[in-house]
C-alpha cells in the first residue's frame, strides 16, 4: 500500500502526522485507545488526591493540592481535545469509560490512606508518569505530542512538590516518618506496574514502536525509574520494600524484584482495592450532572436562536 508506505516513511523521517492527514485505521484506533486512556487517567486520577483535599493539614498544602488537581483536570481536557481530532467525541469516550470498554491507569485503583500518600503519589506516581510521558513529546501524532509538551512541564513540577512533602514527613516526627515509610511500602510495587508487563507479553508494543506512539520498551522505562528512585529513597532515609534491590555495577543499574503480576491482572480485571468505587464515583458524577449539561445546552440553543432572530 503506497499510502501506508509514505505514512511510515514520514514517521521514520521524524515528521508529524496531523489530524487531516491520511493514517492507517490501526494507527487511529491505537491512538484513540492510548490518548483516551491517558485522558481518563487524569480525570480518575483526581479522585485519590481529591480524597485528601478536605483534610489537608495546612492552608498552603491545601492550595498546592487544589492547584495540582486542577492541573490534572486541565491535562484531561488537552488530551480529550487531542483524541477528538481523531474522530471521537469526549462524550463517547466517557461512555466507553463508564461501560468498562476503555481503561484508566491501574495505579488509581489503590487507596490514599494517609497524608504521606499525597507525597508518595507525587514522588512515585507522577515520577513514573513522567518517565512514560517525556519521550511521548516526540510522538508521531502532532496534537498528542504538543499536549505532552504542556503536560510534562506541569508534571515535573508536581513531582517536585510530592518529593517536598516526603522530605517534610521524613524530617518530621516519628509518626510522620512511619507514615512516609508506610506510603512507600504500599505504593512501590504498584508504581513499578505502571510501566506495564514486560514487552514480550505485550500485544501492541512492536507496531506502536514503529508508529512512534510508543517510544521505549516497558522494561527500559521501569529500569530507568528504579535507577532514579532508589537513590532518592535513600536520601529520604526510607527503605524500598524489596530486599533484593541492589546496585549492579556490571549493568550500571539496580537489580530489583518484579511486582506481583497476578495482582496487576487482578486489578486490570476490576479487582483492585478501589476499582468499583472510582468508576462508580465517576458514573454518579456523570448521571447526577445530566440535568446540568442539559440545562446548559438548552440555554445555549435559546441564545443562538435569539441571535439568529435578531439578525
Amino acid at each position, binding site marked *: 500500500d503506497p499510502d501506508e508506505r509514505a505514512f511510515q516513511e514520514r514517521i521514520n523521517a521524524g515528521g508529524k502526522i496531523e489530524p487531516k492527514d491520511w493514517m492507517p485505521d490501526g494507527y487511529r484506533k491505537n491512538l484513540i485507545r492510548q490518548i483516551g486512556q491517558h485522558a481518563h487517567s487524569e480525570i480518575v486520577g483526581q479522585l485519590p488526591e481529591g480524597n485528601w483535599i478536605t483534610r489537608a493539614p*495546612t*492552608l498552603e498544602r491545601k*492550595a498546592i493540592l487544589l*492547584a495540582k488537581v486542577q492541573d490534572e*483536570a486541565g491535562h484531561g481536557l488537552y488530551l480529550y481535545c487531542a483524541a477528538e481530532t481523531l474522530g471521537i467525541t469526549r462524550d463517547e469516550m466517557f461512555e466507553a469509560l463508564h461501560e468498562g470498554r476503555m481503561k484508566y491507569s491501574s495505579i488509581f485503583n489503590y487507596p490514599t490512606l494517609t497524608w504521606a500518600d499525597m507525597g508518595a503519589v507525587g514522588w512515585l506516581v507522577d515520577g513514573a508518569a513522567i518517565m512514560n510521558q517525556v519521550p511521548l513529546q516526540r510522538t508521531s501524532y502532532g496534537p498528542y505530542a504538543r499536549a505532552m509538551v504542556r503536560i510534562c512541564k506541569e508534571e515535573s513540577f508536581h513531582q517536585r512538590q510530592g518529593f517536598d512533602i516526603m522530605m517534610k514527613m521524613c524530617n518530621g*516526627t516519628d509518626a510522620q516518618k512511619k507514615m512516609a515509610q508506610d506510603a512507600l511500602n504500599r505504593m512501590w510495587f504498584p508504581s513499578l506496574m505502571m510501566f506495564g508487563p514486560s514487552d514480550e507479553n505485550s500485544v501492541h508494543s512492536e507496531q506502536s514502536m514503529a508508529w512512534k506512539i510508543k517510544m521505549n520498551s516497558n522494561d527500559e522505562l521501569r529500569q530507568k525509574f528504579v535507577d532514579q528512585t532508589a537513590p532518592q529513597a535513600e536520601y529520604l532515609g526510607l527503605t524500598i520494600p524489596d530486599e533484593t534491590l541492589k546496585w549492579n555495577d556490571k549493568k550500571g543499574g539496580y537489580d530489583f524484584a518484579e511486582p506481583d503480576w497476578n495482582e496487576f491482572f487482578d486489578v486490570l480485571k476490576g479487582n483492585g482495592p478501589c476499582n468499583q468505587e472510582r468508576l462508580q464515583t465517576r458514573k454518579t458524577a456523570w448521571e447526577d450532572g445530566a440535568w446540568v449539561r442539559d*440545562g446548559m445546552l438548552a440555554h445555549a440553543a435559546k441564545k443562538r436562536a435569539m441571535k439568529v432572530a435578531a439578525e
Partner: protein
Amino acid sequence: MGNDALFQTLLRLGDNTLILGHRVSEWCGKAPVLEEDIALANTALDLIGQTQMWLGYAAEVEGANRSADDLAMLRDVWDFRNILMVERPNLDFGHTMMRQFLFDAYHHALLGALARSTDPRIAEIAAKAVKEATYHLDRSAETVIALGDGTPVSHDKMQTALNLLWPYTGEMFESDDTDAALAAQGVIPDPASLREAWTATVQTTMAEATLDIPEDSFAHKGGRTGKQHTEHLGHLLTQMQWLQRAYPDARW
C-alpha cells in the same frame, strides 16, 4: 475594643473564604462537566489564597503567637465567624452555584469597598481579592442564568436552590457594635450599605435566569457573631481539622 474588633472582623472575612473554599473543594473530581471541575477548583484555590491573607493578618493583629493555620485548624465551632450560608452543604450542583452567586455578588461589593479601607493592609488584600471576586461573580452569574433559563428541570432545581438559600442571605447585611466601630473609622463599610448593590445584581441576574426572588425577608443569623452556627459546621471541622488535631506536634 480596638484590636479585638479588628481581629473579629478579619475572622469574619477569612472564615467566609475558608469555609466556602472548603465546601467548593468538596466537588473535586465530581462536577457535571470537566470545565466546571476546573472552574470549581480554581474558585476554591482563590478562596483559600484569600483565607491565608485574611487569617494571616488576623493572627498578627491578635498577637497571641497563633498562625493563620492555627486559626483555621485549631478553633472549635463557636470561634468561627463565617456567615451560615457558606457552611451549608453542597447538596446538588445547582445549590452550590446559587450559593456561590449569592455570595459572590456580596463579596464583590464588599471587597470593592474594602479596597478603599483606611487600614492599608485590608485595602491591599481587598484590592487583590476583588479581581478574583469579579471573575467568580461573572462565572457564577452566567451559570445561574444558564440553568435558570435552561430546561424546566434545571429551572425548578435553581428555583428550589434560591428558595432554600434566601433566608441565609440576610445575615450578610447584619451589623453589630464591632461593625459600627470599624465602619465609623472607615476600616470597613457599613454592612447594610452593601445591600443596594447586591440587590441590583441579584435582581438583574434572576430576571435573566427567569427565577422568582422570594418575598419573605426572614433571615437566619448567628454565624458571624458565632452565637449559633448550623450543625453542618461541626461536621466540616472534623474533616478539615483532623490531621492537625491528631498530630499536634507535626509540621507539614
